């Protein structure tokens, strides 16, 4: 009992010191709290893959009322800003001068072919902007299908039917929703891996560990005292992101809130472990920063499925992705936010994350010794 009491008293002293330093060192606060918010604003508003008001040339070579009606989808939609022309060369000219980004062409025999059940429209897209082109194509297809369906229904007299194309789990295909779980992961990684690696390395560099080691302090207390404050900061950052995601982007949370937070805490333990391992190996702030960037930040962004779909990667890259704890955490978060509690995935990924947590925390304790060699 006495031993535990002493342990907690020293831990409390060290943790208090750590909080005190953190609050005075503005960079920790900036990285832990301000950066997540900046990220969520920038990525949320600036990095959205959705396109709106795409300048579109609508070529009406067929001027029949049917063709006009079919082309009507562009007029009232927030996705398009239509320019109506009567010949393809005119439209191509607009495309070349970058005045429009795509061309929708209704050929002269559109109505005729339509009645034969073979109505076709031509879509010309600017491949320079692939993302816009792809989204534009999807919108046009959806709009034309919906027009065709409503027309068919009216003709057969079976009442109004509207075909709504649906992208699963992200109803409006809002890419922001797709990003927010990634930002959460980014925030957790930055505030834990970076800050822990930096504050530990700083003590090595300034020689403060040397004085601290030669005291009754145990290594367990030093490590825990480093972990507690940055765990707290990361959780604050994450809750800020969750709130911002909910308020700004209407992020759905279909899975259980308890699971979302629980899994994040587990991931946080892994990230803190990585930070501790890095600082124990480098013992130098500059080096720690470089290594942290290389092993945590870049893979988080590039390889975890945050930006790029893993299924379209070459097998080598997929292999690396599968070695990263971030990949499993991100898959979990996406599923929990956008689809709900899917238990097989939750159980599998939680077990994998637990394994990583044990590995890194174990390694951190193994590598951090009260020695200066």
């Amino acid at each position, binding site marked *: 009992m006495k031993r535990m009491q002493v342990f907690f008293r020293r831990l409390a*002293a060290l943790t208090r*010191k750590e909080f005190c330093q953190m609050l005075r060192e503005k960079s920790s606060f900036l990285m832990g709290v301000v950066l997540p918010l900046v990220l969520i604003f920038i990525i949320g508003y600036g990095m959205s893959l959705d396109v709106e008001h795409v300048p579109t040339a609508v070529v009406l070579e067929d001027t029949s009322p049917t063709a006009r009606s079919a082309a009507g989808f562009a007029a009232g939609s927030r996705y398009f800003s239509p320019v109506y022309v009567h010949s393809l060369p005119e439209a191509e000219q607009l495309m070349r001068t970058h005045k429009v980004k795509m061309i929708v062409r209704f050929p002269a025999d559109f109505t005729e072919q339509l009645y034969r059940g073979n109505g076709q429209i031509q879509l010309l897209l600017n491949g320079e902007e692939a993302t816009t082109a792809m989204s534009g194509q999807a919108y046009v297809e959806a709009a034309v299908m919906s027009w065709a369906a409503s027309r068919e229904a009216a003709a057969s007299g079976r009442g109004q039917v509207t075909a709504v194309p649906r992208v699963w789990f992200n109803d409006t295909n809002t890419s922001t929703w797709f990003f927010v779980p990634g930002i959460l992961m980014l925030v957790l990684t930055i505030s834990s891996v970076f800050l822990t690696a930096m504050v530990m390395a700083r003590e090595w560099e300034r020689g403060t560990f040397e*004085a601290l080691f*030669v005291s009754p302090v145990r290594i367990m207390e030093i490590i825990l005292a480093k972990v507690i404050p940055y765990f707290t900061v990361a959780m604050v950052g994450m809750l800020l992101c969750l709130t911002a995601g909910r308020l700004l982007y209407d992020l759905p949370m279909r899975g259980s809130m308890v699971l979302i937070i629980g899994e994040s805490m587990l991931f946080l333990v892994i990230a803190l472990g990585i930070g501790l391992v890095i600082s124990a190996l480098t013992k130098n702030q500059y080096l720690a920063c470089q290594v942290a960037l290389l092993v945590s930040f870049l893979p988080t962004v590039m390889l975890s499925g945050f930006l790029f779909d893993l299924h379209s990667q070459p097998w080598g890259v997929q292999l690396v992705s599968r070695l990263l704890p971030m990949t499993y955490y991100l898959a979990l978060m996406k599923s929990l936010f956008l689809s709900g509690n899917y238990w097989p995935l939750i159980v599998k990924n939680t077990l994998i994350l637990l394994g990583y947590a044990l590995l890194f925390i174990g390694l951190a304790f193994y590598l951090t010794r*009260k020695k200066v*060699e």
Partner: protein
Amino acid sequence: MPEAKTELVIEAQGLTKIFTPKKLPQVTALDSISLQVPAGRLTALVGPDGAGKTTLMRLITGLMDRDAGSLRVVGLDVEEHTQAVQDVLSYMPQKFGLYEDLSIQENLNLYADLHGMSEEARQVRFAYLLDLMGLSAFRGRIAGKLSGGMKQKLGLACTLVSAPKLLLLDEPTAGVDPLSRRELWSILRQLVAREQLSVFVSTAYMDEAALCSLVYVLNQGRILAGGTPGELQDIARGRCYRVAPPEGIPTRILQCELLEDAGVTDAVPVGGKVHFILRETQGKAGLLERHRLTAEPAPERLEDAFMILLERDSRKKRQQPGLDAREQDLISAFAAEKKAVPVDIEVRDLVRKFGDFTAVSHTSFQVRQGEVFGLLGPNGAGKTTTFRMLCGLLPATSGELRVAGVNLRRAVTKARANIGYVAQKFSLYEKLTVYENLRFFGGAYGIPVGELENRIQEIMREFHLTERQAQAAESLPGGYKQRLSMAAALIHKPKILFLDEPTSGIDPLARRTFWQQITRLAAGGTTIIITTHFMDEAEYCDRMMIQDHGELLILGQPGDIRRRLQMPEADMNEIFIAIVEKARQQAKEESGT
């Protein structure tokens, strides 16, 4: 040696520590050393930089593991009972180990908490320590904003919070001003007397070791001697003399020549005279006879014993470079010269501010051609800032600066062709060889290709670098590195040479050689401006100025300054303390009225 009855707090037998860095040959940091440190006393570990002092401290604290031998601290084997040892000893590492973003009070609280002190006990202890250190008025101040001397005292206070069984201090006074050094030692002596504290302290300063009851001399990983200061001093008994230079000859010229005399082990300028050690008790220095100078016996100092021990250990001195045979010695050369020397550097009302902090305040001085001019002061006094402005590395906030007749505030590039600069951290390209470094610097200063080759060969001979010319700079020993950076700075034959703290981090023997080279350069007409925090090195300068907190405190020849202060025999540390105390007294009186 301590008498058998005394309790020992440190006991080392055959202690060895070897470092094996990747790719490099292994280094024996400590080579089978044995020592005993008694309880309740002050014991010093003296040695030049790189002797192995910090390694020994770290082995004692359990921060490193030994490779061979035994080491018992407070009666316990350190390796087996590391935590038990660490529970009862306190250690102040070289950088003081303070948390710079915490206040004085918070730093103290942390250590009190870690040692589990009760609230009442710590209040008493804090009040006592803060009063002892003179820090009571600053409890709330952030440690990072304290002066070097205050940080050092706070570091000491933190180690003393728990009343340790053994206190270890690793070079507590490195880079701290003489006044703070004196205060720290008086505090240590009080603590030992009052609390029966056992202290083991490492230092590079001999005068500090003289204050301890037991001294161990460490050099290149081996203990050269151990004993009371008196016992050690006896090594130099009957071999120390002092001699005054002939009229009109600077002390350093005589010192430089004496150092080269076959009958002399060591010579240093002290108080306007040259203090030297004879190789043998009944020996003599041929130089004195040639110039009909008479030396009188002088009391031996601990430092003399130290120099004898070091010299005996390295046996390198006579192979040291810079000692070529010359037709004429410097004393005769100097006496023959006439004295109409032009002014090389003129500084008027120089000010440099960083924000609202004044680093250098209204400073004026002149330096004449061929003079050795010293800028002295503790860390943070404004030396480096003044220096950088003189070299054109930092623009002045206001004032006038002329170097070699060129206004430095207008034509920096033109002025730079006349100056050579040796930075504090030698700016050499580590991966390039000696030759390649010199070729690069020669090219950078615009020496024509045709002349460059000859010049490189010449300067390599001058600085005895020829046999090392193909070696990469990073693998050179410290003394060679220093000579290479001097050679690089001198390759374009500048009129003025600037040296920033050239002697910190090199051992005393290399320092002697360094000053010999400086004396020789100055005799050849090169103007030398040098900064140092070793106060005793002021004796080598023709003129010097002392700065503190950005203020110019005093300017003049060492001898003149002594006369002005009426301290004819005083060494530079005493002079510094007297001047700073007077200046602070004045400041206090001014703010009082």
